């Protein structure tokens, strides 16, 4: 028996935060999208500092937009080479909520995201995005380690 493949996957959503884990998740998603002729959606979420303070908030917003736009340039090139239809989006908010919302909006067949290793304190204070997405997403979720 060969490696398993998944049928019916037409729209893959990748949560991308420019971390090495997210890069790895993106590689996996690109490979899957190429194999399955699926459309690839990449969402990057800018998380505002809480509570948002005027000048800092706008700085974080602009910085995040620029950083992700830069990351998307080589990604678009890679997708083009593999003949994968790609759509990128940069949104603001809580990552888990925005990923789920995007998945709902595009009716994603699969969400692919990297898992970041957090400390117990970090997880207690802020929660784990991947766990929240796993719990609330309407579609299958693949966590890439």
């Amino acid at each position, binding site marked *: *028996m*060969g*490696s*398993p*493949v*998944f*049928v*019916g*996957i037409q729209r893959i959503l990748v949560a991308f935060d420019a971390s090495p884990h997210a890069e790895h998740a993106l590689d996996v998603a690109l490979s899957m999208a190429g194999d399955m002729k699926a459309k690839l959606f990449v969402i990057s979420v800018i*998380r*505002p*500092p*809480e*509570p*948002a*303070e*005027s*000048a*800092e*908030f*706008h*700085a974080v*917003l*602009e910085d995040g937009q620029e950083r992700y736009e830069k990351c998307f340039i080589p990604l678009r090139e890679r997708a083009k080479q593999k003949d994968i239809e790609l759509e990128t989006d940069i*949104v*603001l*908010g*809580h990552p*888990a*909520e*925005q990923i*789920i*919302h995007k998945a*709902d909006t595009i009716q994603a*067949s*699969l969400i692919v995201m990297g898992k970041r290793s957090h400390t117990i304190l*970090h997880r*207690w*204070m*802020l*929660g784990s995005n991947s766990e*929240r997405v796993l719990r*609330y*997403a*309407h*579609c*299958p979720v693949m966590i890439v380690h």
Partner: protein
Amino acid sequence: MANTWALCALWVGLALAATLLAIWFKISTALSEIVVGTVAQLVIGVFLTGLFGFAQGGLAGNTQWITFLAGTGAIVLTFLAGAELDPVIFKAKWREASIIGLAGFFGPFLGCTAIAHYVLHWAIMPSWLCGVALSTTSVAVVYAVMLELGFNVTEYGKAILAACFINDLGTVIALGLIFSPFTIKTLIFVVVSIVVFVALPFLTPWFFKKYGGRVSELEAKYLLFFLFAMGGLAVWAGSEAVLPAYMIGMVLAGTVGKDHSLIRRLRTLTFGLLTPFYFIRAGSFVSVPALMAAPVTLLVLFGAKSLFKAIAVYPAVRVHKYDGKAGAYYTLMMSTGLTFGTISALFGLNHQIITQAQYSYIVGTVIASAVIPTMIANSFFLPRHLLPHSQAGKKAGQEIMRPVPAEEG
């Protein structure tokens, strides 16, 4: 006199620690700096000053240069906050914005003043200052919520955003005028301010076009000149320097506010050097023993701020057809206002309007109103409005994704 460089290293070291904490816990740097300032004051009081005689007089001490850097931080931060106004939206929506914004200001302003005076039995002037400090809203928090929900492009969302500027303008004007002695100096300040505010939108673009765009950073010097000059005039008249700073930001929002490169350079100056001194200093005046001695005061003020803000803001949120829980959540998020809250409290402390204990309660309330909604959001808030749909989808999703042997695929 303390070793200036050692003292400076201590402050910048604290700023660095605060920034790291902000990154780790995903909180705003301002909040982190206030908390670090409060904790550092305790530690320094016990160890550094007590044991080694370093930083005599506490973290802020009596050093003029720290006061200057902190004050400049408050002025530039307020200017930047004002410069974020969208004049086009404001012109189109000023009527609605004024009604909502004034309600958002007067609700907590009058309510918290009354609670401080009649329930906590504070004297009338500290009560007014308490009302001013707790009347603010955070434009950035509201904008963040709007962006998340996509309301920033709707007509109503734009009106709410403009209303937030009116709300904060109410706070700044109240701070600048209520405690002013109303003499001939006040009249001169008001007249000169009007002339400057009318002239700047015309003078600034012309001046920048003619002389700007050079490495000598003429634009930054020009802005700082007007901010300091008007701030000086305000203080001379017995008012507060952030009042003209916010107004200058607002009147230049259509010109300077659109120059992203200049705003970025100002932000670098502000975050890199100025605001850490402001927020750490503001935190250093918070008396933890005072807070621990009367925690009920803190609870009363926090309750008053949340209640009166909710009374004013909740009806506006309900128009968006949020259910009770979500509406309450967003209302709570709109009750934060670190910058103007601490500026008002520090003004009161510096002018002996409030005592250090009262300052501690007000800043404690400002921090609590910022931290508690954040903690709720991070620890307990879940996308419940997506849940019914998600649960239904999950069942369908399990059918879509089924592993099959490669041969079949």
